[in-house]
């Protein structure tokens, strides 16, 4: 099932004077879509800067995501980050963006996500899922993107 969150999540730290060199109103990250079926089976990150790269990620089997919403993102202005929870044996999982901050020019972009899991003993659909959230971030030359909340340790990507 695809869920669309169109709301722009205000990123923690955006009001700081150390916000990376963008306009004062520019958001550091916004949640474009969530999905329970992203087709990516491992917990990890995939960074998208080109339409070709996006198409690769949209060609995966066992996928059901809001393609149009992703294609509407202007990759000249924003890049996409697939934050994936990995393959799970049942329904009941989701990932959502909680916050984003960057402490200064040239510093890593830090994202926090929340993972929702079915409570132990809960009755769930017995379908293999691969939950993810796709986040749009400003098309900067980020030295590093760190994502907390998926695993005990940050997931790290150098775009």
């Amino acid at each position: 099932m695809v869920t669309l969150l169109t709301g722009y999540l205000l990123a923690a730290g955006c009001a700081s004077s150390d916000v990376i060199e963008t306009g004062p109103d520019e958001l550091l990250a916004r949640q474009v879509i969530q999905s329970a079926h992203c087709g990516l089976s491992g917990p990890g990150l995939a960074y998208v800067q080109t339409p070709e790269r996006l198409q690769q990620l949209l060609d995966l089997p066992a996928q059901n995501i809001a393609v149009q919403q992703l294609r509407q993102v202007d990759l000249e202005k924003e890049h996409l980050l697939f934050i994936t929870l990995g393959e799970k044996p049942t329904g009941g999982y989701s990932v959502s963006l909680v916050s984003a901050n960057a402490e200064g020019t040239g510093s890593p972009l830090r994202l926090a996500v929340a993972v929702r899991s079915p409570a132990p003993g809960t009755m769930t659909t017995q379908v293999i899922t691969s939950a993810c959230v796709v986040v749009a971030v400003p098309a900067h030359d980020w030295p590093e993107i760190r994502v907390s909340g998926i695993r005990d340790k940050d997931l790290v990507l150098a775009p």
Partner: protein
Amino acid sequence: MVYRANRIATALALSLILGACGGSSSSGESGDGGSDVLLPPARIVLAGTIGVEANTRVDADTADGLVLGELPLTEPQLLPASFILAGYVSFRDESRGTNSPFDDFPKDPEDQFQVPFEPGERLSLRTFSEMAGGPLVTLALRRLDGTELESQTTDPINKMFSASVSLPATEGAGDYLVVVSADDFDPPPVRYVLLKTAGAQSLALNLDWPGHAFVPGRAADIINLSLGGLPEIPALQNAIDEVVANGVIVVAAAGNQASSSPAYPAAAEGVFSVSAVDAGGSLAGYSNFGPWIDLAAPGGDVRRDANLDGLADLVISSSASLGPDGFEPDYTGLQGTSMAAPHVAGVFALMKSLKPDLNTGTLVSWLAGGQLTTPVPGGRSGALGYGTIDSAKAVLAAIDNPSITILSASPAAISLSSETRLSQTVELLVLGDQTNNLVINPAIASPAWLDVTLSAVRPFSITVTLNEQALEEDVPVRTSLEVNYTTDSTRVLHIPVVAELVTDENARNAGRHFVLLVYTEPNEQGQLEAAAQVSMTAVNGTYQFGFRLNDGTQGASFADVPPGDYYLVAGSDLDNDGIICQSGEACAEYPVTGMREVITVDENTDLKDIRMATGYFRPTISTATPDVLPRPGFTGYKLKMPHSHGVAAPKKIGVER
């Protein structure tokens, strides 16, 4: 409302005192409201306790509470986050003037509960008045200040006796008011069940409804439960026993934990437990298994392309996708025992349409007799139970004295290519009335790229061979063979064929690949981790790799491997999670993908002509190696990281292919 004594009050009070065993209440509250009855001391001949299932609740000012108490509740009754509550609403309180002691009721037109909610959580109500002209009951969800958020009213005229509300996503988690109210109506009052639980209780209750424990006239013949995750629960078994006794057939998904531990409701008595197979008929890697499996059905397995159709083995499932105007009906390829169970339920429904008295007992007998499935060696296996559902066979079994005879192809479809196999033989099985003579027309039309040979004597078969000279390079082709045969009637069997002559070897590219020598024992996280690795992109359609022996005399690099035993594997890391060979990622294993073997590396090792094949689809599973694959719980191979402490190492390796 002030309590007004009546006949029910007297009857209930008396029963409570009698139930108190010697005059002391075991519930902590004495049943006052009636005259004391002194019971003589007596020898206890029967005693016991009655347990109550967790999270069960009752409306505190329901009829007996109102009768025995002075006033109905003035504050909302506090309920836990998960519960099943039995309640009661009644509008009038005047006597009906009849002789029936149950014909007047304490007035209780509204019940209020304070319930913890999370955004999106749903609460449901079901009334137990089946009168078309019965009362309207409204279920409302409000903030604690009384602001209404959602409400729904039952519609008895249209036979809608349930209502539900959910907390909007815009609301915060916390306590909310749930209000159940009835409009003005004549007695009898309305009993209802309010439930907010995802556990066994709701399943048991919901099973009762289609099984007509409450509703006159059965609402369902077959129940499919594409869900699971519960332990063994007596209440659930009781509910299943009841619906099965009422003639309802229950099918459930075995579960996706790749485990042999019984999972409920599938493992419950009276339920057909369905494991999942891929397109090649082998147990899917995720599927549960064990002696409690009854039969199997296609559930998909994204890691495989067992039927060689060029696509991952998924089950096309009805779904929804987000379009410009909102959600639109769509189909999505999914995998799971949730997809397998409906195949069985669907076939049972076809059978039921032909044999209306079909029930669980008959199906169990036929299943054990091999009349519903493609049998497995030995009659039954822990992976597939009595075998994979065979719809043609099963439906024919449901026809008393079938007068028809049909041909069925096994396998049902053919895939040929210059890279896999150029020829395949298909068995033509005779199903139905075996007394009918069957003659196959030897003229089977086929395109120039396909040669067809028929064996027209029993056992019938057909062999198809790819004619490479007639194929255009790198262009997939399809056809459907029509096998005409005459038996009780003239019929046609269609066998789809796909084929391709592949020549683009130099242009092939499966993306950046990691080649690993992984330890044969998992690490503390249960992962098979690389002892040595190299990475590269394809050149002229191939990847060249090499590892050096790390004998301790020189500084080791990632490509240096210490002496030891390893698996040699390769693959892509599409999502940069440091693990290769996951779903959607290319994968290769030495010597054959799917049947890796240990390589011993020492000073005498000299393996310089290793050849492997990588790709995004998984191989056909050989029937000769049923126990080698799938590997339950396989989660890929972990890359060796440059910085093992702190966080995963940043990588600049993308997903380019």
